[in-house]
């Protein structure tokens, strides 16, 4: 250390700001957090639900906000939500997957075709394996050959649908074996009482939120949006469970969807894997040069997406206990629409699975509302399209405003 190429001034330059830097949190920017850009999908959902419940009330239709109807919307949205959550993961990683609906149809066809001969569970396992295989093909072509994901998955979407047609020979398949039908019923229909889970989970969230709050009080920091969300979610879960007297009956697909969403949310939000996934989408080159295996993360995202699609296909086949080769055609667009409504960026690096589920609920509330109000299905496409463009405009314009502020 005898070599003094650092002049005294130089030392001062590099240490003064360190000393001057107070250990303070920036003020929480609530206006930004509650802005349309951040929370728009929740506002839209709340407004839509309000409008629909007022309309049903006024027109004397059965109340929109009945527990039965809400459960119904969740049930209808569950398959799309499962696929959309996985789609969000692919979008965050900076890719795109058009093949989900075809993969779901393939899984459904495999399940229906094999359930009679090898039983429900082995057939479901086979269906998942086939789906994962398609995901692996998607990911391998995109990552190793370097073709744009849009083109690759457009091709696999078409090809996999072709495989479904070949496999079914263009006819509907139906499950015959009573044992398989029983297993399907047990797997898909009926409801689960998650009252206790909701109570326990709610209490846990509330406790975590309060603990977080207390700790931050001690260090004289402000209420963070994070603990506000924790406390809010905790109270919400408790109220829901209490309103049913400790019983909260939900259809099984909704429970599967909720469990999957919470798992993915947890991984994205709190784990090293999640952070790296966002980095991979946010700037793949920077992630690579930080020692992250970009190829592995993107490949895994494709496999997860196809697995989720396969699972949705299994639920779909179990619901109908038969499969029509054209089933689910076009569903990939609804899935992607849900992710975009939730604010997921098509360029990667940004997105939230909870908001994606809110996006799916928004789309299905529209459908459901149209049915309840007898408005005719013809207008649905138009309205859904307008909502999508409006949402995308809010995200884009909001993003621009922030960008120009920064310069």
């Amino acid at each position, binding site marked *: *250390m005898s*070599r003094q*190429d*650092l*002049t005294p*001034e*130089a030392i001062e*330059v*590099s*240490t*003064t*700001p*360190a*000393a001057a*830097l107070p*250990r*303070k*949190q*920036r003020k929480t920017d609530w206006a930004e957090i509650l802005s349309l850009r951040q929370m728009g999908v929740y506002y839209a959902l709340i407004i839509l639900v309000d409008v629909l419940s007022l309309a049903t009330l006024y027109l004397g239709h059965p109340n929109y906000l009945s527990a039965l109807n809400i459960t119904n919307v969740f049930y209808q949205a569950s398959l799309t939500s499962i696929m959309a959550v996985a789609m969000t993961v692919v979008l965050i990683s900076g890719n795109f997957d058009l093949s989900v609906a075809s993969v779901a149809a393939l899984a459904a066809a495999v399940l229906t075709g094999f359930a009679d001969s090898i039983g429900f569970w082995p057939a479901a396992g086979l269906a998942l394996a086939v789906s994962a295989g398609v995901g692996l093909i998607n990911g391998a072509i995109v990552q190793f050959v370097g073709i744009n994901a849009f083109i690759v998955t457009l091709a696999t979407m078409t090809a996999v649908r072709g495989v479904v047609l070949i496999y079914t020979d263009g006819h509907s398949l139906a499950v015959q074996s009573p044992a398989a039908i029983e297993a399907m019923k047990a797997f898909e229909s009926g409801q689960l009482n998650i009252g206790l889970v909701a109570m326990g989970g709610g209490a846990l969230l509330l406790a975590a939120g309060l603990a977080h709050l207390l700790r931050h009080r001690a260090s004289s920091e402000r209420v963070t949006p994070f603990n506000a969300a924790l406390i809010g979610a905790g109270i919400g879960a408790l109220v829901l469970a209490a309103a049913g007297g400790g019983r909260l009956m939900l259809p099984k697909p909704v429970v599967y969807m909720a469990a999957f969403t919470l798992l993915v949310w947890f991984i994205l939000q*709190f*784990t*090293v894997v999640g*952070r*790296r996934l*966002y*980095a991979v989408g*946010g*700037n793949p*080159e*920077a*992630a*690579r*040069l*930080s*020692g*992250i*295996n970009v190829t592995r993360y993107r490949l895994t995202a494709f496999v997860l997406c196809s697995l989720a699609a396969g699972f949705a296909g299994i639920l779909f086949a179990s619901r109908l206990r038969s499969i029509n080769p054209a089933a689910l055609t076009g569903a990939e667009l609804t899935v992607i629409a849900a992710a975009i409504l939730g604010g997921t960026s098509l360029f990667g*690096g*940004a997105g939230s699975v909870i908001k994606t589920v809110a996006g799916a609920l928004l789309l299905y509330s529209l459908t459901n509302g149209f049915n309840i109000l007898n408005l005719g299905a013809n207008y649905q496409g138009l309205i859904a399209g307008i909502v999508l463009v409006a949402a995308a405009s809010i995200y884009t314009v909001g993003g621009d*405003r922030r*960008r*120009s*502020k*920064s*310069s």
Partner: protein
Amino acid sequence: MREQNVREEQLMPRPPPLMRLERVTKTFPNGTVALRGVDLEIEAGEVHGLLGANGAGKSTLIKILSGAMLASGGQLTWKGAAVSWNSPRAANETGLATLHQHIPLVPTLSVIENVFLGVRGGWRRSVALQKRFDSLCDRIGYELDADRMVSELSIGQRQMVAVFQALSSGAELIVMDEPTASLAAGERELVYRAIRRLSRTEQRAILFVSHFLDEIMDLTDRVTILRDGQAVLHANTCDLDEARIADAIVGKQLVKLEQRTAAQTAHTAPASLQPRLELRDLATPGKVEPISLRVAAGEVIGIAGLLGSGRSELLHAIFGADSLASGEVCVNGRPIRRTIAGAVGAGIALVPEDRNRQGLVPNFEIWRNTTLPALKDVAWFGLMPLSSREHQRGRDVIGQLAIKADSPDLVVAHLSGGNAQKVTIGKWLYNDVQVLLLDEPTAGIDIGAKTDILNKVRQLADEGRSVILVSSEFEELLKVADRILVLRCGKYVAERKAHETTAQELLLLAGGQSAGHSPRDAARVN
């Protein structure tokens, strides 16, 4: 001649200047004040230098000038008439063209199509356009192949295409935003020649923004220096020297690094001692020819080379970022796996050349960027990153590298160049780094941040790390490095001790003179 001008000005009433800014202010919607009343006058035929540290308001001023942004207050006057441009197109039509630092050309179109991109007309190619193009070549004194695709051109040639474009629109004032920042020395000369020609023979005015004090001294007639949104100095260049300009930019006595002395560089470890980093026949086909090198602990190796000399490719090969590279890399005597993960695991870190494209995740905050390479250390059981520890680390980086940010929660896309660069270095400070590879860490950043970074590099080496530093500014290498290797066209051509050489010699060695082929150098290759 300039003095004569001054005398003339005192005698007769001056015509209005080509462009005048009076008390121009800019406040952003979020309350940030970027400009606090800037005056600026640009005369026809002059090269006007605009300087300032990162964050001084240069970019904002340029955006207002070029019509990309409206001023919040003040007055813009063009040839004596007030103007208010609300789009770059309006500014263009009045006679002002802007050359941006990152050249916005269409890579899939030819040179001539790019030059006349804004010209309205029915045909893609016409004889008239070709004639105009040829006359542009004559006027600037530089020949460009009209039919080459822009994507095939070097960065220097692209810069010239942008100059052609500005001229073809008939601009009388050309704003050049750091036109030489990403250019190698030879390519810079091209731009200088074009600027001199435009101002002397064509009476065009040029507003030249740069961080390089030497080119400001060489090239400009007058300079304006911005600091904290105010013009702190207007002066004729001939009345100034580099030290005064630097003082005005920084606002305090500039910290200077001295060239390293023999005593300082004489610590190259004896051959018996194990080198910290050893390269054995490392090569990348078509980019880097086999090179072997031993770097001792605490040693800083400078790599001098021009653009295309294989300097970045060499660093990428060491880091395992190039799967085509062959050869062996040893850290502390042990060969490492030739992947990025292997290199990071062995304690090698790379600060890449292009911080925005390769170094940072733009929508991550400072803290999330700084913990990216070593997430497991700040995570609970190596699985769940703890935000409190990460914030602590972010604050630590801000302090250690004197980053101008009041909180680690700032998103890095909002940082200025120098501060963003510091984050790309800071993210490697926690990895138990043994070998630090730096690729142009001071490109396009102000002199204060530059000094901070170079001091930090020296400090990291003194703490026992080995550093390999690539820089286009050879003076920097002389100040920081112990040994300097010269690369040319992917080939190792010479090695010099920092205290035995000069920037001129390095430039000659790197720049294609045959000076590098003395027997002494040939013997040193291995």
